[in-house]
């Protein structure tokens, strides 16, 4: 079923939409008419731009028997989502002269993703607001595009090792009458590195700019030279807080490509872990957010209670952070009676605490003075900017994939969506804490009705050629995976769009005009995860490729301390 709004929006532009099954819609568009098509979609108010995927067709064409060493073109995919449906607009650009018009004039939220595309594929985006680099380091060699197939890891390593050493640039530039406060990449407010430049007039912020990429590990590129199984472990390490949901999104995509589906018991266990992960993530966030407001008592208490869930995750999987539950085709761990009882006891202990925190964030006057009416993000804007997760739900936009497009076992254990019309920081607290109750309820429901059966089915080592889109609801919002197989043992392309990247648009749009003291609160309000954003480029190697040697860790001239391992 192709939605009528889509057909009506795209028909006048002469675009034919085809249905590709599994709620996927596809359309081919040529580069010049792209902005027109996007405008038509926006005017029809159909969905939001979820991700932009660049695609080098080389390996695919080689598999199809093309003798050319490199494909003559790139594909750029614009994924628009609405509920369970994904409309993928495909634009083909020639490799010789890759130029695309920017759509950021129509959808301002697209600009971060366009910059990512342009830096990693070398596709020139015209009419884009001028910026420095977003993700790649400042001394990254010009003309080296990490996601192009011809730029193999070896080639990139060699190019980088030839680079002269450059000093990092000093203080930000200040125009007359402009006082810039740099926040990050090292700053007490940020637990992870990012760099904000806030121009202030007294205590009022007048301009803000964002620089990411300080913890790039090149995971998307690295996945292309690892097998499908190895890549599971790789994507688990994209984020330390939501490792499970990344792996879930990945294996769901792999299972789609392989045409298998995991047994019901495995799906239920995946769901169980996903909800336990949400509890741990939201409690962690609550502590961090309270600390930003200078409310360290709440910080300490919420982190103490978070230990309950961390211990449970540890008991069941042996790990606190990378529980590594998923394998393609199923899960590794079973839930037996003692574990099930332990989890239930944990939920019993947590729920009264969560209720207490809900009371604090809704009734503590000193805390409400820092959250009520701060960082207001009206519903219309939240909808059109494409923010996801609790950030969207706190603005009254019901965007929750567990409800809209139930995956794994959410069909059997339906989620009651939580949302709030407050649109401010206080609403984000309320939404996340209420979601904790919902997660506790789901965990109990799953334990009560855990299906019996196998834990996994076999998945072939070689995954059949094809492409799959896998979207799941991470604790921070919609997590988008695009997987492409050329029929080999390695993925041809893994594209990850994390919820944080979608939510930056909100921070950048509300920061101007706020008080300086509110900025850390607003940043943390989206629960940003920088290591999730930063996953795209290749590490700077010095000789050894995958590991850092002891010599590299010792600063030059420091000599070697006695007794250290060789």
């Amino acid at each position, binding site marked *: 079923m192709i939605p009528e709004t889509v057909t009506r929006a795209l028909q006048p532009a002469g675009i034919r939409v085809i249905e590709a099954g599994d709620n996927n819609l596809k359309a081919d568009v040529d580069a010049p008419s792209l902005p027109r098509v996007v405008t038509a979609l926006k005017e029809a108010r159909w969905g939001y731009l979820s991700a932009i995927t660049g695609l080098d067709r080389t390996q695919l064409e080689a598999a199809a028997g093309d003798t050319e060493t490199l494909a003559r073109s790139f594909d750029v995919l614009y994924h628009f989502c609405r509920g369970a449906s994904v409309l993928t607009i495909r634009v083909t650009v020639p490799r010789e002269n890759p130029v695309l018009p920017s759509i950021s004039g129509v959808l301002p939220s697209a600009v971060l993703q366009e910059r990512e595309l342009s830096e990693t594929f070398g596709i020139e985006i015209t009419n884009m607001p001028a910026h420095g680099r977003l993700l790649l380091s400042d001394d990254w060699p010009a003309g080296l595009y990490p996601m192009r197939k011809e730029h193999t890891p070896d080639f990139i390593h060699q190019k980088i090792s030839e680079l002269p050493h450059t000093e990092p640039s000093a203080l930000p530039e200040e125009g007359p009458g402009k006082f810039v406060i740099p926040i990050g990449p090292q700053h007490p407010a940020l637990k992870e590195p990012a760099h904000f430049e806030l121009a202030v007039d007294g205590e009022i912020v007048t301009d803000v700019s964002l620089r990411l990429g300080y913890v790039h590990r090149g995971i998307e590129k690295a996945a292309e030279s690892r097998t499908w199984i190895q890549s599971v472990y790789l994507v688990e390490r994209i984020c330390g807080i939501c490792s499970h949901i990344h792996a879930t999104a990945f294996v769901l995509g792999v299972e789609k490509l392989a045409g298998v589906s995991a047994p019901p018991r495995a799906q239920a266990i995946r769901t169980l872990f996903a909800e336990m992960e949400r509890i741990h993530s939201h409690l962690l966030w609550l502590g961090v957010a309270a*600390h930003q407001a200078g409310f360290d008592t709440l910080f300490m208490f919420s982190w103490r209670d978070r230990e309950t869930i961390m211990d449970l995750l540890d008991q069941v999987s042996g790990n606190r952070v990378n529980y590594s539950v998923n394998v393609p085709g199923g899960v590794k761990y079973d839930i037996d009676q003692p574990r099930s009882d332990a989890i239930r006891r944990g939920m019993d202990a947590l729920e009264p605490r969560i209720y207490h925190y809900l009371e604090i964030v809704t009734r503590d006057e000193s805390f409400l003075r820092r959250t009520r009416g701060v960082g207001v993000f009206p519903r219309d804007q939240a909808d059109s900017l494409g923010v996801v997760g609790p950030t969207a739900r706190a603005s009254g936009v019901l965007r929750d994939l567990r409800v809209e497009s139930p995956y794994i076992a959410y069909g059997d254990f339906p989620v009651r969506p939580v949302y709030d019309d407050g649109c401010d920081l206080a609403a984000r607290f309320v939404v996340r804490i209420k979601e904790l109750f919902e997660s506790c309820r789901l965990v109990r429901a799953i334990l009560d009705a855990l299906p019996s059966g196998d834990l996994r089915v076999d998945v072939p080592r070689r995954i059949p050629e094809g492409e799959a889109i896998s979207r799941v609801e991470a604790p921070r919002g919609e997590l988008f995976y695009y997987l492409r197989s050329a029929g080999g043992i390695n993925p041809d392309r893994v594209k990850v769009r994390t919820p944080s990247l979608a939510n930056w648009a909100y921070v950048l749009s509300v920061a101007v005009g706020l008080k300086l*003291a509110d900025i850390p609160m607003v940043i943390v309000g989206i629960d940003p995860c920088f290591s999730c954003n930063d996953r795209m480029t290749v590490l700077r190697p010095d000789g050894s490729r995958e590991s850092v040697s002891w010599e590299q860790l010792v600063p030059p001239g420091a000599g070697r301390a006695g007794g250290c391992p060789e």
Partner: protein
Amino acid sequence: MSVLLVIVTYLIFPGGLFVIVGSLAYEYADRKLIARFQNRVGPRWFQPLADLVKLLVKEEIVPAGVNRGLFIWLPAVALAAALAAAVYVPMAGLAPAWSFPGDVVCTVYLLMMMTLCIGLAGANTSDRFSIIGAVRALTQLFSYEAPFLLALLGPAVVSGSWRIAQINGYAQDHLWMIVTQPLGFLVALLGLMGKLELSPFDAPEAETEIVSGALTEYSGRGLAFFRLGRDIELFVGLTLIASFYLGGLANPLQFLVKTLALLFVTAGLQSLFARLRIDQTVGLWWRIGAILGLGQLLILIALKTAGVPL
């Protein structure tokens, strides 16, 4: 003999050594109490001393672009002012070492030197966090200083004296002034917390926004002096408020019990609230604090003129 007495007064008791040891002990008590309120273990008893010694032996880095003299001397001046204030208050429940008519005003100004020095120290560097911190510290100074002074004037007006020793004596013979002047007590205690930039009045050094505020560039000895000065101010401030509002300090036991009770309250207040934004702090002090302090003082003066016994 009298020269020796002066030396002992300033260097050993009640000034100097005694104040330093006492203030480190109170810092420990403060940190431990807050830690326990927050469900943490908290420091060991010698941690404040260890911190101080560690900072003192560290290299002191003077950043580029500062006035070197100011940078080095400001912490010393701040520490000296705090130490000097100690000799005018009934330390350890004994009579103040020095006393003259009007010493209550002198003490208030000595206690203010700390914030002034921190503000100047922040404005002296070209660090952005320091400058914002200095602006906030001085903004906050202007907001709590007047109400704090008004709150200390209440007991002075009632006792008819401007000498701390006499006010302390008057307080011992009469009903505790926390009962007769509850508003003044509240304003004085919160004013002290504002002076010391304790949570929730810690916007000038809000670490999640401006790192360490005005002291961001300080390290080693300078930082040690500022920290020690703040501890001493807490110690002296608690003594002053206890002697004015909690029925005076007649002996060391009373001193210990009353100041520690006050410390317990301030530690509780520190762990109860989220940080106030600087605009909220200023609003709170001028809209509420100053009005309360002034109102209380006017009532006292009116009653005093009318001859009502207080």
